[in-house]
């Protein structure tokens, strides 16, 4: 993190170019004089960077602004059609691919079914096909694709884009997804775990704008998280930090998919709730889920809760409580400014969110609890697709600085 930048002129040029490009993205239409003033760069540097960006088509001149004395300044904006970004959200049962323009608008997306038994080769091929479908629909040349971001199940090696052993993806072991996708598509690929992508997406496009210390927790079939510290993803020593789903909450609790016992994921995730519902019904609880006993789904459980089913409501209430305890732990550990909760359980159950929020505030250390805001995610159903695209935006606009926009 605190590397000392040496006098490498190429690197400095890249950093300056990213600074100028990102400022034009954030503040455009903007004049060169204002770019100079805000970045603190000297005028020659700004002029060269802008010339460079215009020749690459990333930035366009859109006419003259009003003068503050002297010649009227030429205004610069991003050219939304100069480059495109592919987002890809990969999970055990579904694959979504989306096409974004340079200002972060989702143009087209398509969803592909995926079976747990599908091999990496099959999945890579489907992503490639999906990408070409979207490009054809939008009539965009592949040469204009800046990169592809992939949000994938962790733990994984983000630097090399290798998936270790994603749960519920049979036979996937140390899959070099980045390398495979780059070979198949020819575009640069950025892979990160779903929690990290969600956090980055919230900073780029949601309520996380300008927040430097943020934690995103996904509460869905599984539980994942991404942590941003001082504007950078927190990865730990081999990119596995922030496994909030695998905090032990109940020492002698049920076995978790990770091999441990009583992890948050084993007792409060969608999978766990569905399992608990089945167990309760077998023990004699009455519920409208009874007819589905042998394959209750999370959506059925959420629907039952909406209809006032007591078992479903109790399970969601308990889920919120367990989540609240885990969030209090997380607040005590990381002392964050903002915690964003996303995923199906949060989106569809205000009960889970409110219970978790309330308990987390009560249970965390008071000096830390005072500082933290806990909010639901703001990017809707496709938050992980947006997060995947945001991985590429970070690379393009923040370049060698490798941090998120402030």
């Amino acid at each position, binding site marked *: 993190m605190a590397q000392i930048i040496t006098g490498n002129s190429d690197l400095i040029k890249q950093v300056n170019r990213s600074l100028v490009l990102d400022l034009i993205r954030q503040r455009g239409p903007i004049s060169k004089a204002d770019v100079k003033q805000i970045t603190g760069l000297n005028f020659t540097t700004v002029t060269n960077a802008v010339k460079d960006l215009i020749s690459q088509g990333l930035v366009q001149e859109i006419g003259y602004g009003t003068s503050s004395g002297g010649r009227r300044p030429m205004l610069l904006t991003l050219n939304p059609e100069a480059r495109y970004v592919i987002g890809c959200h990969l999970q055990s049962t579904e694959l979504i691919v989306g096409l974004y323009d340079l200002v972060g608008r989702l143009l087209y997306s398509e969803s592909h079914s995926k079976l747990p038994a599908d091999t990496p080769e099959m999945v890579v091929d489907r992503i490639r096909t999906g990408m070409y479908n979207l490009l054809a629909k939008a009539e965009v040349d592949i040469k204009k694709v800046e990169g592809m971001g992939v949000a994938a199940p962790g733990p994984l090696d983000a630097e090399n884009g290798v998936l270790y052993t994603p749960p519920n993806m049979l036979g996937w072991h140390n899959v070099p997804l980045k390398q495979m996708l780059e070979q198949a598509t020819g575009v640069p690929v950025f892979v990160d775990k779903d929690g990290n992508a969600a956090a980055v997406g919230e900073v780029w496009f949601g309520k996380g704008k300008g927040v430097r210390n943020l934690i995103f927790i996904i509460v869905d079939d599984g539980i994942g998280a991404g942590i941003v510290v001082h504007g950078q993803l927190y990865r730990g020593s081999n990119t596995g*930090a922030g496994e909030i789903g695998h905090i032990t909450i109940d020492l002698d*609790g049920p076995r978790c998919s990770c091999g441990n016992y009583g992890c948050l994921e084993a007792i409060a995730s969608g999978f766990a709730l569905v399992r608990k519902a089945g167990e309760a019904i077998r023990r004699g609880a009455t519920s409208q889920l009874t007819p589905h006993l042998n394959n209750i789904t999370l959506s059925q459980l959420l629907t039952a809760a909406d209809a006032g089913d007591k078992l479903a409501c109790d399970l969601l209430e308990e889920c919120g409580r367990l989540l609240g305890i885990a969030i209090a*732990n997380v607040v005590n550990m*990381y002392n964050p400014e903002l915690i964003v909760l996303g995923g199906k359980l949060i989106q569809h159950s205000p009960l889970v969110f409110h219970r978790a929020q309330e308990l987390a505030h009560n249970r965390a250390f008071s000096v830390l609890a005072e500082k933290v805001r806990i909010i639901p995610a703001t990017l809707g159903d496709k938050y992980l697709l947006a997060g995947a695209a945001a991985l590429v935006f970070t690379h393009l606009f923040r370049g060698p600085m490798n941090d998120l926009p402030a």
Partner: protein
Amino acid sequence: MKRAFTDSDQLVLGVDIGGTKLAVGLVTMSGQVVAQERTPTQVKDGPEVILTRLVTLCRQVTAKAGVGWNRIVATGIGCGGPLENGVVKSPPNLPGWDDIPVAEFFSHELGMPAYLENDANAAALGEYFFGAGRGVANMVYLTISTGIGGGVITNGRLYRGENGNAAEIGHMVVVHGGRECYCGNRGCLEAYASGSSLARRAREKVLAAGQASLLPGLAGSVEAITAETLLQALELQDPLAHDIWNETVNILGSGLASVINLFNPRLVILGGGIINFGERLFGPVRRIALQRAMKPLAKVADIVPAQLGAEVGIVGAAAVVLDKLQLLRTVREGTYGSFYA
């Protein structure tokens, strides 16, 4: 590993403010203690008297070492949290220290920069610069004595969080719905594995068991049982002591598995009185934690004892200065400066 300074001509004052004792030391940039002084805290004297006593100790230590005041770069202070921006905010071990601007007091009285840090964070920095964590950019330090404190080093810097109070590892819930903790929560690690909780649990077990145990005899009475008594009884193969200890290492091991899953460290360093339990502690805790943590994270992690011993308070406080100076130096030499060159 990055070391900010190696010039041993420059010195740092390390000040350790504890609930029972005060310690001040003059420390070199390579972590050697040149001279030190200790004295009981006498909490009832209140912050003003105690702070004045500490400033006097700083001058005495410097005089004792025969060192010119101009060779001292800065003062680092370690103190129980919560703290914020150099201000002590009512720590449980220092009653009456409500909103005391400790850093400002020292820098004013001593005429040099002074930096205040949570004592567990300071100890983590001490172990990182000079102890078991040398060269390990991602590490977690956990001190288990009367209470439990933690400090996390990430990418070679102390992880402070939004207002400097991160890594309250003692208040990680390990037993859902478990024992009450003084923080108001239930089932915190602190409520099981701290020295005082260990002693309390032992006393309860003795009273509840109705089973013969060496514990009361070794201590003199049930009320007098401490963590040390437990260790003595373990060495004498007392079965009840074994049950208590097994439960303790199981809970601590699970807590450390969560810590590994959260911070993905290369090392977890344990310090404080609990390390007197030696392999009885490290053997099972290492096994349980690494078994319970997620595989790719467990693979790179290890759990080891702290190395700084009794000097950790002073050396840790001095290391706080190194962490700050490292930052200043990075800024001065231009991580960001050169962007605008």
